[in-house]
């Protein structure tokens, strides 16, 4: 197991380097002089001030030097300071992160709670009307644009029925009921696509497992269908789902960007969009890097979990 973990960690190193270079390079490509972005195009500042600002920002040095300097700061946890306000990027992320985490976890939980039973049900009788309906619904839910769904939900539940608020955020600890009320529609919006894709994965994984010898053995020795499915098949069918969850984490964050925008939730998504429109480079850079690192970390954890859950993987690396 130790060698497996070590191997995975070493594999991550080049990925991290590519990510940091790509993030930095993209940002340096942004058209325009950073100083003019901060001060505004028609600034009254004289050349001396501008030069001094360039010096302070360090943008007058060669790009590779800037990159190494930036990396040194990043490695010590310093993502720089916003150009638009005196707050550090790290602090801003710390403020916004809980909202996004709550949204993604609620959505993930909801998606799993619905997709696992549906996928299993569909796999039990492939080709049956139940399967056809579930698979059809899965295709539809996969193709619904999440922003459109969000708007339809607001229209139906907030504007027409007036049951739920359409936007805003209250921290869970301040007012749990209001928090969940506000999060319900965003969660539904974000979860729908995942219900479809997860249900498909659960179905095909389940079908594969149900075809295995050990399931046939379990049935042959006279176990009840229920015991076979929950005791033997389910456990094995869900192992690959863990990996897929990890892989879909990135998409989930991207979906959160859109969802937060529709429901005006103060999370990482609205942070990056606002920063993009404000051309606030350090914030965009910091958030992109942070989100990507989180995705990589989640993937690492799911891979390790996979190793723990499946002795066959561990055996491969001795």
């Amino acid at each position, binding site marked *: 197991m130790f060698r497996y973990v070590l191997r995975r960690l070493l594999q991550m190193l080049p990925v991290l*380097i590519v*990510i940091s270079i790509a993030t930095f390079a*993209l940002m340096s490509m942004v058209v325009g002089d950073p100083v003019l972005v901060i001060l505004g195009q028609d600034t009254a500042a004289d050349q001396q001030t501008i030069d001094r600002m360039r010096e302070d920002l360090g943008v007058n040095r060669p790009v590779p030097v800037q990159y190494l300097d930036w990396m040194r700061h990043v490695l010590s946890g310093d993502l720089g300071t916003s150009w638009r306000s005196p707050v550090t990027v790290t602090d801003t992320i710390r403020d916004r992160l809980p909202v996004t985490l709550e949204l993604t976890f609620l959505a993930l939980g909801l998606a799993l709670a619905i997709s696992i039973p549906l996928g299993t049900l569909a796999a039990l009788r492939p080709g049956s009307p139940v399967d056809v309906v579930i698979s059809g619904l899965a295709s539809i839910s996969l*193709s619904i644009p999440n922003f*459109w769904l969000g708007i339809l939900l607001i229209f139906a539940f907030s*504007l027409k029925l007036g049951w739920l608020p359409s936007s805003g955020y209250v921290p869970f600890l301040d007012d749990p009921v209001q928090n969940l009320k506000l999060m319900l529609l965003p969660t539904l919006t974000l979860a729908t696509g995942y219900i479809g894709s997860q249900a498909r994965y659960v179905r095909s994984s389940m079908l594969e497992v149900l075809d295995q010898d050990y399931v046939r053995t379990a049935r042959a020795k006279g176990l009840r269908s229920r015991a076979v499915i929950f005791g033997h098949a389910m456990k094995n069918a869900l192992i690959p789902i863990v990996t897929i969850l990890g892989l879909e984490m990135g998409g989930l964050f991207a979906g959160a960007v859109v969802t937060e925008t529709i429901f005006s939730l103060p999370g990482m998504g609205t942070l990056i969009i606002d920063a*993009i429109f404000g051309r606030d480079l350090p914030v965009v850079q910091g958030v992109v890097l942070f989100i*990507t690192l989180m995705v990589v970390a989640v993937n690492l954890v799911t891979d390790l979990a996979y190793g723990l859950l499946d002795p066959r993987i561990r055996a491969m690396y001795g």
Partner: protein
Amino acid sequence: MMVLLILVLGAVFAPVIAPYSPNQIDATARLEEPTREHLFGTDTLGRDSLSRIIYGGRISLFVALSAVVGGTIIGVALGLISGYGFGWVDSVIMRATDGMMAFPSLILALTIAFALGASLQSIIIALTVVRIPGTARLTRGQVLALRNQEFIVAASAIGVRPPRLVVRHFLPNLVSIVLIQASLGAGQVVFAEASLSFLGLGVPPPTPSWGGMLRDGYVFLEVNPWQSIIPGAFIFLAVLSFNFIGDGLRDLLDPRQRHIRG
């Protein structure tokens, strides 16, 4: 399939069938509900929504086509190079795709579109780049699986040169899997383009796009929900039909999937 055909025809013949010019402003008919003159109603500036939907489809499908074709060509080329060339070339390409795939695709597209500035071109470039790593990995995997197959070994044993080997022996065996990937990808690109436009980082106005129309309409949800419902429905239909075609192709072309899907 039919739906897609109609959308494509609509996009190609937009100037002929659109009842109005997409940017023609009629200040007397703003935010109208659907009527006989304006089947899908009008937007805040009094522009005819049906015409804008038809022209918007042009943009969406054009972006999807360009990004998928571009992404596929570059991705397949990289995948072939990577799978065929051992050693450091393969390592470099694979580590680069690893790194790119670590970025959530919408975030990567957002960042590229931001870096290049909002324009039709930068959207296409952003979405093409997003398509490359997945296609490259898929192709590489196929090439690695193929290169030990007897017919390839036999072909190279009788002295078939690498360029001919790639064109005559590898590519035909890659077509089906790449085609499936491309058609599922087209749905994703339509979706991504609409997301970017919805977030305000897509094709700049006044050019009509479905995502942009949804963005404009959404502000007036209370006054006139049609302006949000209709463009979204078109995005949904386009994505759904690409996904159906992709799934259909997979069932048709990939016999391994058949027994799994029952």
